[in-house]
């Protein structure tokens, strides 16, 4: 075994449920319905209490972990001969199981407060709200602050965005396991790239602005009644509540997962996740890149098709251009499906320039 390349051909476009047949539309409708119910109704609460869980979110966490574990089995059956994929998916599922499910489940039993260590601000948008920080034990408040403001940029600079988006994050984890059957459906057009850049940076700006406004509100200590009402009020259109509704529930949940079977598993990560946008900027400045082996690309399009972030990898590969794209989550699939071994993910130092194209004169034999 070679521990890297694709092992056996895929029949993706011959499977209706993976190529937008009516089954895919029904699956999407079911997923969207589930998320609408989860966020806006309480049908799951009695089920949760019937099996002894504190609330519906514990039930959701359990279902999420099961979906991820099941998806991981599917993923590893298709792409599991690759060492990178084996390690990455094992870590990602392990993080979900331990940090995002077992630990939050156990912490309250030990008399603590539940806390999701694997979700960081600004993805966990309320983590740096002053009201949240104030309510946390000091070690958890420090963890939130240091992870979001210090560790994240440093790790992204050294390893690229992937350390989070495809090794730790639960959204990315679900996308790469349960969502993997649909990864080829991500739009790759230039128009979709333009939309992505505007949308994702807008959400990032909104995330930073709303957190700052809430911080200001905290500093003012509610002295300005109108300001507090607009920013932190409990009516649905206050800054805080709107963010929770539009970005936290609709974009991350309903659209993010509900659209898997139609538009691929990274709709949220690519277009709306504020964390991904910030990590992408650090990545552009940092060491991570995809190295292209010159003059070996046959323009087959496997890399572009199976890129879940809609990056036209082929356009770089066929022009012999090593590259770093802000969107790239470093899942490694382009290198995995490349039939000519042209692509390689690397944390290379910036000083190391591309190997000069070698077009040497003939040996004198």
């Amino acid at each position, binding site marked *: 075994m070679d521990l890297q*390349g694709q092992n056996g*051909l895929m029949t993706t476009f011959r499977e209706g449920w993976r*190529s937008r047949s009516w089954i895919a539309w029904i699956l999407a409708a079911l997923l969207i319905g589930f998320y609408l119910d989860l966020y806006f109704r309480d049908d799951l609460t009695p089920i949760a209490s019937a099996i002894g869980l504190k609330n519906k979110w514990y039930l959701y966490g359990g279902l999420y972990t099961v979906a991820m574990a099941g998806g991981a089995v599917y993923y590893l059956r298709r792409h599991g001969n*690759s060492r*990178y994929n084996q390690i990455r998916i094992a870590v990602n599922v392990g993080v979900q199981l331990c940090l995002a499910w077992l630990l939050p489940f156990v912490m309250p039993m030990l008399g603590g407060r539940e806390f999701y260590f694997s979700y960081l601000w600004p993805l966990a948008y309320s983590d740096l709200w002053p009201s949240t920080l104030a309510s946390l034990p000091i070690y958890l408040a420090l963890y939130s602050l240091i992870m979001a403001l210090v560790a994240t940029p440093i790790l992204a600079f050294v390893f690229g965005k992937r350390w989070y988006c495809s090794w730790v994050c639960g959204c990315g984890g679900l996308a790469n396991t349960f969502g993997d059957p649909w990864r080829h459906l991500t739009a790759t057009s230039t128009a979709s790239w333009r939309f992505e850049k505007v949308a994702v940076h807008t959400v990032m700006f909104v995330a930073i602005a709303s957190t700052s406004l809430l911080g200001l509100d905290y500093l003012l200590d509610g002295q300005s009644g109108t300001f507090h009402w607009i920013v932190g009020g409990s009516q649905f259109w206050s800054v805080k509540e709107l963010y929770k509704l539009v970005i936290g529930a609709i974009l991350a949940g309903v659209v993010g997962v509900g659209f898997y079977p139609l538009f691929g598993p990274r709709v949220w990560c690519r277009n709306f996740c504020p964390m991904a946008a910030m990590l992408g900027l650090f990545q552009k400045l940092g060491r991570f890149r995809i190295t292209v082996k010159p*003059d070996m690309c*046959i323009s087959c*399009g496997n890399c572009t098709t199976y890129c879940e972030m809609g990056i036209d990898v082929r356009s770089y590969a066929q022009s012999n251009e090593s590259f770093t794209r802000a969107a790239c989550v470093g899942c490694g699939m382009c290198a995995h499906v490349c039939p*000519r071994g042209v692509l390689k993910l690397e944390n290379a130092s910036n000083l190391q320039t591309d190997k000069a194209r070698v077009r040497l004169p003939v040996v004198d034999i």
Partner: protein
Amino acid sequence: MRVVIIGNGVAGIEAALVVREREPSWDVTIVSEESDHFFSRTALMWVHTGQLSHRCIEPHDRDLYERMGFERVRARATGIDVGARAVNLAGGMDPVPFDRLLIACGSRPRPGPWDGSQLRGVGHFVTHQDLAWLENETYGGPSRGGPPPRPGGHLAATTDDSPYRVRPDGYAARGGPPKQPAVIGGGLIGIEAVEVLVAAGLKPKFLIREDWFWPMALDEAESTWVAERMRHHGVDVRLDENVEALVGDDAIRALKTDKGELDCDCCVIAIGVIPNTEWLGEGVELDRRGGVVVDGGLQTSVEGVFAAGDCASVPWYHGAKMPEQLWYTARDQGRVAGRRLCGDQAEYARGLWYNSAKLMDIEYTTAGLVSMNVEGERNWFFEERGKVRSTLRVVTVDDRVIGFNALGRRWDHTVFNRWIAEHRSLRWVLDHVREASFDTEFVPPLTIPEEDKSKELGGAAFSVIRDPMPAPRA
């Protein structure tokens, strides 16, 4: 200035893009019988299995021709009128006049020399239309990715012997996919056809004339591993078996070989490709292989008429002219041809040979002179069996490396080629071999034990696989 390009493949489209970049106002016309859109021919196999769609293998947006102002003529060219400077078209269409012309019409499958090669259920795997035929044979039609736009757009102006005609299939008559598919020809297209049939859940017979698979590139030990992988997937690999006839009345029923008769209800003939140049007639000079003879600047025997890609006989490193049927060289030739079409001086300089492929699930990289029987060549061969299975063959002459053949790992061929040009010794190369590694992360690096490295020093233990043979083949 009117530039006409015959062929919508990689050489033709690269040339057209170079011309457009340099000369925004020139008329550029692309004549193609095969397809409306440029696509990656090397990727046909993935469209067949459904791993990719037709759209996926088109490297550009579909509005490329409009955006670049390329006029497309979907028709069969039937000849070049050198005097009137025009390309004649089939089907009563008006000739297309040109000032400068690029012939980039590529290859066509080498037709089967046997009786019965035209039977229903027999075809090739080279063109868009061959893909449609094999999709019809195995699945009864295209995948959900859909067929290309205007798949039969050329039919009004084509002929029965055109390689761009969809051959008749036997799906309906059989009532399903073939039960006894066969592939004839032990080369790269042959193994691709075998792979797509395996992906469709079939167990093809693979008839190879030679003693082992792909002797042009692999030695016996390397090839045996590939054959082992094929057999693991249920392929009936039949070495040293010569086909004598394809048997059937309307549809193929059996293959007659020098070892007996084999049941067969669908057959892919993959015995190589030949330049698609018969239609050129006396217009330009052709060599005995059918390639359009060009000089170092890719100009044919006619002033202002160039040729690039698979159909051109270009000068190789040893001086002889031969067609060079490879994707990347066609792209490079197209770029040179584009500059020549603009009136620039440019030379096509072929560097050292390199190539890569994927044989079933085994990655293959080669660089330099391998399996060429160079005088005095000695081969150092190493097989790795551990977490990773791989082989590495280094070809040397007088303790200077001249070639590399590697299976099972990813290597950077540019580093190999640099070492060859630097006249590195075998020992030096073995000590530095990891610098050429292109393996993905977490793959344990290749470790060559000291005793294997120093085979060379022992002299007697040096593994000589092939006896020295006279002179490289010209």
